[in-house]
């Protein structure tokens, strides 16, 4: 069986990818530290529990990225002739499902707390010989969490755009949701301190709603990817006119009478068919190879485009 060739990345993209890998390692360490700290201050607060679940869940995208980062560029072989690039989609699917299901769980619990009018009990913790109400300890912990999430989210966004990496983009969006969650939890904790027992569960419900929304958006996105949707932007600011760009380029070649393309996404890359109605079949192999090469020069994301010569479109 003829396997696809190995993916050749331009050096600058390669460097960006290495930077993203390092950033995700850092992110993983920071998220573990925030999750541990938040866990220590959960007590009986629903909002803090929601924050903990969200922090713990936000470990999944970096892990998915780091694992698929090692797999995705492997050379295609007899067993996997199309290569390993779809592993990115699998990683993305895992995080989306985890987000959605745990969000629903927290939402349900928070609503039940409200229905049953359960009051959150928060006790005291001994720290360096002082007895401190755990509610107060939640503030510095949440501030630390917010600072980590905010910085990570801001740093991942441009890399996700450059690499056209949806796992990384989803990760960045999750970081953004996480720091907003932290702010909400601080408000909830303030509510408890003032004796408004419902503030905690209301905040938890809002956070859970945000997690569910995030999970739903990601799940929709990954399912459409699996359905071979036309390439879409990984980040809001990214332009999504690759198909038109490629088609116009091919139409501009002198031996091409008419042309069109059919594209889909495979992880960071775009692949598919280029349909050409040729003016002449003279030196067809040579011209075809040149066309594919020039497409790759147009954008590094074009990988293994198939040239199909047709009578009419």
């Amino acid at each position: 069986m003829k396997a696809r060739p190995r993916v050749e990345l331009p050096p600058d993209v390669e460097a960006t990818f290495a930077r993203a890998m390092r950033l995700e390692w850092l992110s993983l360490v920071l998220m573990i530290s925030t999750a541990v700290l938040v866990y220590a201050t959960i007590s009986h607060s629903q909002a803090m529990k929601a924050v903990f679940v969200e922090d713990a869940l936000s470990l999944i995208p970096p892990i998915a990225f780091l694992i698929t980062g090692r797999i995705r560029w492997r050379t295609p072989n007899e067993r996997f002739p199309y290569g390993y690039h779809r592993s990115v989609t699998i990683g993305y699917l895992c995080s989306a499902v985890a987000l959605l299901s745990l969000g629903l769980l927290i939402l349900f619990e928070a609503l039940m707390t409200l229905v049953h009018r359960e009051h959150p009990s928060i006790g005291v913790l001994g720290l360096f010989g002082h007895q401190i109400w755990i509610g107060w300890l939640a503030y510095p912990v949440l501030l630390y969490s917010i600072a980590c999430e905010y910085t990570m989210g801001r740093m991942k966004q441009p890399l996700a755009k450059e690499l056209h990496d949806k796992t990384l983009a989803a990760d960045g969006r999750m970081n953004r949701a996480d720091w907003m969650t932290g702010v909400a939890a601080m408000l909830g904790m303030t509510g408890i301190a003032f004796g408004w027992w419902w503030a905690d569960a209301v905040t938890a419900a809002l956070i859970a709603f945000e997690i569910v929304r995030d999970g739903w958006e990601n799940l929709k996105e990954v399912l459409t990817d699996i359905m071979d949707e036309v390439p879409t932007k990984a980040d809001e600011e990214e332009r999504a006119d690759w198909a038109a760009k490629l088609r116009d380029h091919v139409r501009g070649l002198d031996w091409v009478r008419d042309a069109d393309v059919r594209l889909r996404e495979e992880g960071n890359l775009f692949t598919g068919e280029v349909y050409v109605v040729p003016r002449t079949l003279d030196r067809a192999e040579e011209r075809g190879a040149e066309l594919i090469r020039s497409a790759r020069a147009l954008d590094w994301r074009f990988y293994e485009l198939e040239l199909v010569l047709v009578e009419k479109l």
Partner: protein
Amino acid sequence: MLRRMQIVLLVVSLAALACDAPRDPEETLTRVRRGGVLNAGASEDPPFLVRRGDDAVGIEAALIKDFAARNGAHVHWVWGAQETQFRALEKYQLDLVAGAVSAKTLWKKRVAVTRPYLESTTILACRRGVVPPTDLRDVEVAIEDGDPIGAEIEKQHGNVKRMHPLDVNQNVVAGNRTRILGLGYVFVETLQREKRSLATAPGENAFLQALEVFLAQRHDAIANAAGEQP
């Protein structure tokens, strides 16, 4: 300049609000301090909590009385079934439930449970002058009727002798350390540990904080009184 003034004002007013925080949604602490009564659900657990008429004596009883006194209140003891007391506590009909409340009580999710104020141990002991057994196999061990430690002794193939009350004339006994040593037996080994707590109404965080801070201050004194390791 005006903006800075506004920020200072905001911080000061928040700090002022935070001074008496956390607060109780149902105002337990305020009510105890103003009304001078702390309603405590109690069930007997000698020697920690023992009924004397309507009053209570023992280490745990003294602790609760001290806490009430510090808040200008006296304790109104409500004796009865603990399950009922927990249900009353959940609905704010009692301020506190005492009497062998474990830090891991299954009521933990429905009411507030303090951090353990004492780790009490269940021990194996023998009468003065009796050679302590090295192995419990086929040894007769006397316990108070209904003490869950019977299971552990059976697991070690000992013969459990259940009696009520546990008297001072047994060769080998097992039970709560404070109680067993109080009967004059000699310590052999520790069999089990249990963290003791008190339960308070759910979400009454000012009351919970006041009680937990008080228990932390008394931590070593309680351990000494119970003859346990602090």
